[in-house]
């Protein structure tokens, strides 16, 4: 698609790459302000308790301590930490500090002191008397009558059924599944379980807050949502939005964990209390259990098919836990239905979900946003159905999958916590993804040749998945551009580059539209004082939504440039073209003016700043499509599963920067592999984390990665800038089901619980082959 494009579609270097690899002070924690204090949060040692008495006298008296805050010292404003567009669909069930704690790690108090050592000592000096309450740790117990009510406070709102610990409930149906099952020849129903994965960003959550010379509260923070954070902090601290300035510097990975106002409020409160700059940075241990994680789910998936392979009805029933607070509770779980079921064109679909509170670490947004759980269930069940029908899994999917021109009606019922909008499929590279990925893994050859030496069995498996590109009718963004004397442009966007390369992609879109090289676009992003609004980096929205705003703003500016050139070249606008950093005529008499000459003329002769801005949103969320093929080797004596080759083919629409797009795929599958095989935050019987360190919680490192093949199948999406959709989330969904299916192909056992641990593989093998 990029044949005649100079910038879009080119593998250009990340605009912020050099400063990152040379270690320039680019991240939140890279500054040190004079007089800066260190903040620490006292985490609850109990999963569920009421604070009967809290005495901060000794802590306050410790030399070097500047503030100790408890619930007595701060405003009580129910809110959600989820960084979502207003009005947030998540329950308002969280307080800056409260007299009740609801999970091990919940905030009890906060301290600001001269050094970390003093702050830690002060935490130990805070005397707390708890009334320990019975804790609800098991997801299946949460709704039972007689168990403790986690949110018994009267002032929280938007909780579905607090008496039964139900944060949210979803029920949507199209057609009539019962009728569908009656009309089916075969019905399959299975239960699946998924684990609590943590984002493990290289940079943990960190925020630095201070009062500027005008006494405005400035918060430099590691966030994906600077604008939401500003709005939330203003509400929680009860100060006007205009008195808050949020700065998002370079971010060391968010993966959804930073779509959350997590430290900004408390850091801001400490800065206001001390009138000194305050920094709070999570330790790795704190990041594991005090930040967010992926919602664990128990999924029941039921599908009815005709003998000819037509899927007639599909039904997914989910019990999920959001942990102690309802951040992203209904929206993540909504996706488990709305983005998963419509992949296959069943006439009847039903999705039901209870999202329950438990006294466990809080779940939140996480790359994939509910889809990894749903696709694990659906794609392993579909594999089983194909097997049962004697069909090749690829062909079975091909028969049933969504295609160009389809309208997904389930999305219309399941929006961001409310009614959504129907989803029209205007671009679809799924068939080509299947063809190319199957060829890359040698599907036909390997499906017929499973095996290997005695205890090492090989197999191949696959999964198909999709996602969205922005939240239809909700996500919106804006961009502003102005021209400089040298013919360069300043691009200001509220979009939040979290390391995924948004700044580069957005600058490429601007440069392409304006006909200038990438170095002529200087981008500033994610600063609420300087850049216009953007919802932030989530829902795979930045390229399509923020990029859409940039495209519009750049088109407006391009029109101003052409108007100016028309005067200078004495040629009609429709005979002018931008390119190669100049404006030229497209008629015979080839005349041209460089962007630099044009800018000088505009500024000093015409006394005009060439500038403009635009806002953008979509009423539809075009899905990127993805297929994942895995070749595995199962050690039948140890139960270890080694992935030998992982092939991912993605349809992202147009890849604005193919090299970056591939990088996003590779990063996503690294997390997807961990989710499939090793990653899980474990709790003990008291709700305390058991493996809150990288020594105990393992992720896929470079040495663990299998051979990767990444294929971009480009399509042209009418709703996206230059045809782009999205890419960063969708590839995380496939590894778990593809691996589970490959294990089945290798050794004939179905694993329905994530992560797939060697012990589970071994147990299943024993059950199947008792002689082993």
């Amino acid at each position: 698609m990029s044949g005649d494009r100079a910038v879009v579609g080119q593998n250009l270097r990340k605009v912020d790459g050099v400063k990152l690899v040379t270690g320039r002070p680019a991240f939140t924690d890279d500054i040190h302000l004079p007089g800066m204090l260190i903040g620490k949060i006292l985490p609850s040692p109990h999963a569920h308790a009421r604070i009967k008495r809290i005495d901060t006298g000794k802590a306050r008296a410790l030399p070097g301590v500047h503030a100790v805050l408890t619930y007595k010292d701060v405003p009580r404003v129910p809110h959600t930490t989820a960084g979502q567009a207003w009005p947030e669909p998540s329950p308002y069930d969280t307080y800056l500090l409260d007299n009740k704690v609801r999970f091990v790690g919940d905030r009890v108090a906060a301290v600001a002191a001269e050094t970390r050592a003093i702050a830690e000592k002060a935490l130990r000096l805070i005397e707390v008397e708890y009334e320990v309450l019975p804790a609800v740790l098991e997801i299946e117990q949460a709704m039972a009558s007689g168990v403790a009510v986690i949110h018994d406070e009267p002032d929280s709102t938007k909780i579905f059924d607090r008496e039964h610990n139900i944060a949210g409930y979803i029920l949507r149906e199209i057609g009539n599944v019962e009728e569908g099952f009656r009309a089916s020849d075969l019905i399959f129903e299975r239960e699946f379980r998924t684990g609590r994965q943590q984002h493990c960003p290289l940079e943990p959550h960190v925020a630095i807050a201070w009062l500027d010379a005008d006494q405005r509260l400035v918060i430099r923070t590691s966030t994906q949502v600077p604008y939401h954070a500003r709005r939330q902090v203003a509400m929680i601290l009860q100060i006007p939005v205009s008195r808050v300035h949020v700065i998002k510097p370079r971010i060391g990975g968010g993966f959804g964990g930073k779509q959350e106002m997590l430290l900004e409020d408390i850091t801001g409160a400490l800065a206001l209390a001390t009138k000194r700059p305050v920094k709070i940075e999570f330790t790795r241990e704190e990041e594991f259990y005090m930040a967010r994680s992926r919602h664990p789910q128990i999924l029941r998936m039921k599908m009815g098919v005709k003998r000819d392979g037509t899927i007639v009805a599909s039904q997914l029933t989910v019990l999920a836990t959001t942990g102690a607070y309802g951040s992203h509770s209904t929206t993540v779980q909504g996706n488990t239905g709305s983005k998963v079921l419509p992949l296959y064109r069943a006439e009847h679909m039903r999705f039901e979900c209870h999202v329950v509170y438990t006294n466990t670490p809080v779940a939140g947004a996480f790359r994939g946003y509910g889809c990894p759980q749903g696709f694990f269930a659906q794609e392993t069940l579909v594999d089983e159905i194909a097997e049962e029908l004697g069909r090749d899994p690829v062909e079975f999917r091909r028969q049933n999958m969504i295609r160009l021109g389809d309208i997904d009606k389930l999305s219309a019922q399941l929006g961001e916590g409310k009614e959504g909008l129907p989803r029209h499929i205007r671009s679809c590279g799924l068939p080509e993804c299947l063809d190319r990925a199957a060829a890359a893994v040698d599907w036909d050859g390997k499906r017929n040749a499973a095996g290997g030496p005695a205890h090492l069995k090989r197999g191949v498996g696959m999964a198909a998945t999709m996602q969205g590109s922005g939240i239809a009718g909700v996500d919106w963004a804006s961009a502003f551009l102005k021209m400089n004397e040298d013919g360069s442009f300043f691009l200001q966007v509220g979009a939040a580059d979290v390391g995924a390369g948004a700044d580069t992609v957005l600058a490429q879109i601007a440069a392409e539209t304006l006909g200038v090289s990438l170095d002529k676009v200087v981008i500033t992003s994610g600063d609420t004082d300087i850049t216009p609004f953007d919802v932030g980096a989530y829902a795979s929205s930045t390229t399509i939504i923020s990029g859409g705003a940039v495209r519009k703003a750049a088109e407006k500016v391009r029109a101003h440039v052409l108007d100016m050139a028309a005067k200078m070249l004495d040629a009609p606008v429709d005979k002018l073209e931008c390119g190669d950093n100049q404006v030229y005529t497209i008629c015979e008499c080839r005349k041209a003016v460089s962007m630099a000459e044009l800018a000088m003329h505009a500024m000093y002769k015409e006394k005009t700043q060439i500038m403009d801005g635009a806002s953008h949103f979509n009423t539809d969320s075009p899905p990127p499509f993805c297929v994942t093929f895995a070749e595995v080797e199962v050690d039948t004596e140890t139960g270890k599963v080694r992935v030998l080759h992982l092939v991912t083919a993605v349809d992202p629409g147009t890849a604005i920067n193919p090299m970056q797009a591939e990088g996003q795929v590779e990063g996503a599958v690294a997390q997807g592999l961990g989710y499939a095989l090793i990653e899980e935050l474990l709790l003990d019987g008291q709700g305390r984390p058991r493996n809150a360190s990288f020594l105990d919680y393992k992720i896929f490192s470079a040495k663990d990665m299998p051979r990767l093949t990444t294929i971009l199948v480009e399509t042209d999406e009418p709703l996206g800038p230059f045809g782009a959709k999205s890419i960063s989330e969708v590839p995380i969904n496939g590894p778990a089901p593809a691996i589970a299916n490959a294990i089945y192909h290798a050794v004939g056992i179905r694993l329905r619980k994530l992560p797939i641990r060697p012990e589970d593989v071994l147990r299943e093998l024993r059950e199947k082959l008792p002689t082993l």
Partner: protein
Amino acid sequence: MFDLVEAFHRPSSIREALRLLHAGGRRARIVAGGTDVVVRADPEIRSLVDITRLGLTYIKRSGGAWAIGATTTMAQIEHSAALRALAGGILVEAAKGCGSVQLRNMATLGGNLANASPAADTAAPLLVLDAQVVVAGERSRRTLALADFFLKPGETALGKALLVEILIPAPPRGARTAWSFQKLGRTESDISVVNAAAGLQVDGKGVCKWCRIALGAVAPVPLRARAAEALVTGRKLDGSLVEQAAAEAAREASPITDIRATAEYRREMCRVLVKRALAECAARAGCSL
């Protein structure tokens, strides 16, 4: 992490190191590569005594025997061409499997042993090699068998002394001698869930004349599987003997359940790894099972 540490010493002689260690009492700690000490960050520690400048970094060979200085790093062992010739390279294999490149550049052999983790990867191969450790106290030096060195998790027979050298007596050699090291971790750079090492020598008829089997992470200390060794020694090596010995080794283990694996899984993996180690040895010694 070490906010309360008041002194970091870098002595240049063993005597000086020991003096500082004694002067610091309970709150002084030896640090070599620091990959265990720093990670644990024991808040009791007030002074650290760095022993990496004591001249204890070396790999020496005399005849068939070897002496390795306590502060020799895993990376130096991993890249030692000479050591690769020792016992089929099992010590090199074990060192290679420790953590990551960065870790192996810091981590020392002495630290791996003195740390007394039951999972220490170099312990099993060294037990199989009948290694001894040389321990320097303020007044005297003594040499003890590695098998007697480990007391319980985190505890050795060292006391307030310095582990200075690891001695490896000349192991059995010849075409019918073979060795194997096996490690099972959750990822490529993980502490062992279970590790195992074996060495054996057979005669021309395939009868086992000498056998050593050691296991890691399955008991309070790295373990010699003596009953399994006894079972194999003096008998003709075949598939069923290997199975029996592996099962015996699993019985000798007393594993625990922790974050990495359950006790039952560990016990089962003892069997699998010992079986694999013996089978690999047998194959290398030219026996067909």
